[in-house]
Structures are given as C-alpha cells and as structure tokens.
C-alpha cells in the first residue's frame, strides 16, 4: 500500500500506512469525533464509515427520504411452524455428531419499540464455527471446517417474544479489511417485527471481547451506549449444570406506526 500523506507531518517521519490497524483505528476515532462534535448520538451505524473499506462505494450519499408507511409496509410477512422446524433452533444436532467447541445457549426476547413482545415471528441466525470458519465457499480462512456444524439456525418467537438457540460459541476470524484485521466473535441475526418497517439484520457479540475497539463494523455505531446493545450478557441462570453456558440477549425493533385506534386491526 502507498503511504498516506498526513498534513502537518514532518518529512521523513514514519507514517502509518492505510492498511495498518493504526490507520483504521485513527479513522474510527475521526468518525466518532465527528459525530460527537455535531452532537449526534447515533443509534444506528453510520453508513459512510471509511474505516470499513467495503462501505466506500456501497453507502448512499443522499439522506434517506421521509416516507409515511402505507399499506403493505404497515404489516409484516407471516412465518410459522410450517416454515420452521423446532429442531432448527439447536445448531448442535444438525449433522448427527457433536460439533467441537463451547456449547452455549443464546436466549432472549424480541420486543418492538414500545416494549411489546413480537409474537410468532421468524428469527434467523448464522455464524462461524468454534475455529472462526464459516461453511461458505468464499471463506478462505485456513481454520478447520467442523463436519458436525453448519452454523445456521431458525426459530419462531413464543407468545412472550422469546427465542432460544443452542449452539457453539463462534471463534473470531480474520478478514481482509486491513492487515491483521480480526472480527470479534459474533452471531448474525435476522429479525422481522409486526411491520415491514421494523426489518433488522444485525450481529450479536460476546461480553469483554478484546477486539471490540479494533473492529470497524462494530465501531460504525459511533455511540458506546448503542454499541453496548449488541453485546449479550452472560447469565448463570441460563447456564445448565454440566451441559452449557448461557447468554441473554434481548432485541428491540423500531417502533410501529399503528395508532391506538388502528391497534389490532389488520389491513
């Protein structure tokens, strides 16, 4: 990589190249300082976040336009037990043998922005195995594939919005954003609410990961308070004697648009 010219530097002084963690960390800090100086406490990630290299040509440059949700947008697709077998919530039993790694349960509730449970709705997850490897033809990480682990799960939420997956704790994995770039361990989550406007795809992280500060995807959410909402909590009451460790993670979707009069009505 060519050296970056940094204004104000003396000639001959060492310049971190753009491919280094130092350069990426500096870009993370700059974007966060920018939001802070404008008083923006961001709840969603910045789409324009130069430290995440792949975002450069893929973020819209115009502000999203205001739209009042109408018709189809005020309801969500319906999924049910026709779509999902209850066994799909256990990622450790899909291949006949026991996958290698730390067996965990991830459980929580899906709520809407007003605190109401999202009932009977689809939750999809996917993740790397314990060694940080995905079963994906484009994953080139030279870590072992686990023949007993695909890393895909689905569930339908209960009446109280609850979901629960049994899985293996995923490993961190390297990626090509910059030299020596590693993603903190995470599980990808896909969620629907009661309105299409609530659609959410995100990632759940594990408490205390030393890679948090270095990761441009996680840090694209420039407010610490908002970032914290992606981190599960270790919960000893969810852990099971001589069997697995438990994590709790509640998910809050954006608010719905039904007015009290429309409540319970269907289009």
């Amino acid at each position, binding site marked *: 990589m060519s050296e970056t010219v940094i204004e104000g530097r003396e000639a001959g002084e060492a310049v971190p190249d753009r491919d280094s963690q130092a350069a990426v960390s500096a870009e993370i800090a700059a974007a966060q300082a920018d939001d802070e100086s404008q008083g923006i406490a961001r709840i969603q990630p910045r789409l324009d976040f130069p430290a995440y290299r792949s975002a450069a*040509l893929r*973020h819209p440059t*115009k502000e*999203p336009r205001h739209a009042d949700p109408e018709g189809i947008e005020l309801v969500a*697709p319906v999924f049910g037990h026709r779509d999902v077998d209850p066994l799909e919530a256990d990622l450790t039993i899909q291949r006949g043998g026991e996958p290698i790694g730390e067996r965990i349960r991830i459980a929580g509730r899906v709520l809407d922005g007003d605190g109401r449970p999202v009932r009977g709705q689809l939750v999809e997850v996917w993740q790397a195995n314990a060694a940080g490897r995905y079963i*994906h033809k484009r994953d080139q990480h030279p870590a072992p594939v686990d023949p007993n682990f695909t890393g895909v799960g689905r569930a339908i939420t209960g009446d109280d919005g609850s979901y629960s997956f049994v899985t293996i704790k995923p490993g961190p994995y390297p990626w090509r954003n910059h030299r020596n770039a590693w993603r903190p361990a995470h599980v*990808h989550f896909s969620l629907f609410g009661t309105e299409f406007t609530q659609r959410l795809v995100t990632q759940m992280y594990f408490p205390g990961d030393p890679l948090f500060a270095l990761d441009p995807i996680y840090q694209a959410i420039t407010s610490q308070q908002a970032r914290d909402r*992606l981190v599960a909590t270790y919960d000893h009451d969810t852990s099971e004697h001589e069997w697995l460790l438990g994590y709790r993670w509640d998910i809050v979707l954006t608010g719905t648009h039904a007015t009290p009069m429309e409540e319970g009505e269907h289009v």
Partner: protein
Amino acid sequence: MSETPANSRYAAAAGLAPTPGQTVGPFYHYALPFADGEHLVPAGTPGSVRLHGTVTDGHGAPVPDALLEIWQPDADGRVVREPGSLRRDPGVFTGFGRTQTWRDGGYSFTTVEPGATSAGSAPFIAMTVFARGLLNRLFTRVYLPEPAAALESDALLSSLDQADRDTLVAVREGDGSLRFDVRLQGERETVFLRYPRHEV
C-alpha cells in the same frame, strides 16, 4: 436527534432504544436464501410478471453479493397473511420473496403485479436491500409504472424531483417484465426511505 416532526401522530409514542443494525456480511448465502425465494408464484403462472434489475455501486460496478427482499399485496391489493414463504406451496401466495444477486449484480423475482391497497393509491412493492459493505439495511419502494394518475397523487413521489422519482418507478420492458435497478451510490442513486420512528 429525532426525525419525527413534533406535530406527527407518532411523536407521543414513548420508545425503547432499538437494537442497532449491522451489515449482513459476505457469508449469509448458506443461511438466508431459501428454495424458491425468488418465486412468489411459479414461473409461467398466468398473470405473473418478472421483476428484475441490477444492483450497482458508486462506480456503477455490479454488486454480486447483495440480498434483496420484497413484500407486497396480491394482484387485488389484498395484504395476505399466509405463512409458508420458506417452504413454498406453489398454490399459496405469501407476498414475501428473498433472493441474492448473481455475479453480474443481477436479480430476478417472479411475482404478480401488486394491486392498490386502497382506492386510487399507487401500487408498489416494498423492498429491503442488504449487502456486504452496507452497514445497515435500506428500504425502498418499487412502484408500478401505471396508472399514471395514481403515481401523480402519491405522497412520496410528489415530494421528489423528477430524477429521484424515476429511481422508484419500475420500467416496463418490451417483454412486459418490470425492470428496477438499485444504485447504491452516485449518479441516479436510488431513493432510500426513512420512516417515522427510525432514528439516525
């Protein structure tokens, strides 16, 4: 920073802070796409239409790893409430579809043209866009090119200048199919939406 105007009917709603989004990443292909996700109705069904296009980046280059979802009423404008999108019964229209883009950035759904959900309203398909490099999902609308009168009176389209408006209206191709390109950035960038109660 609230995006909700003070006089909005939504302003009074107290809220929990939502969980932030994150990119779908590059490795969703074995998890999210499902069999016949792109076929809301089987190809060849009388009255079916192909909705297709290309997803491109700020250099106009194809985005080969985007994921698109559509959600729409049926041909009569009815919002159906049917499960089964993930395990399709060819006889049941669920209104939901999901597909990934191909190596050339192209995508294609087979569906029915949505009807108007209320008299005189402009029929549209709701679409969400996900991709590696895209840190959060994007919402947009795919409007049918007809009827012109409904498009004229549509609140969202009326709020846009002609160039922006054109990005939301599908083009009727010679073979009757609907073409809708998604330009993530740059020239003729697709208009993406923010609904009330969606924070920055």
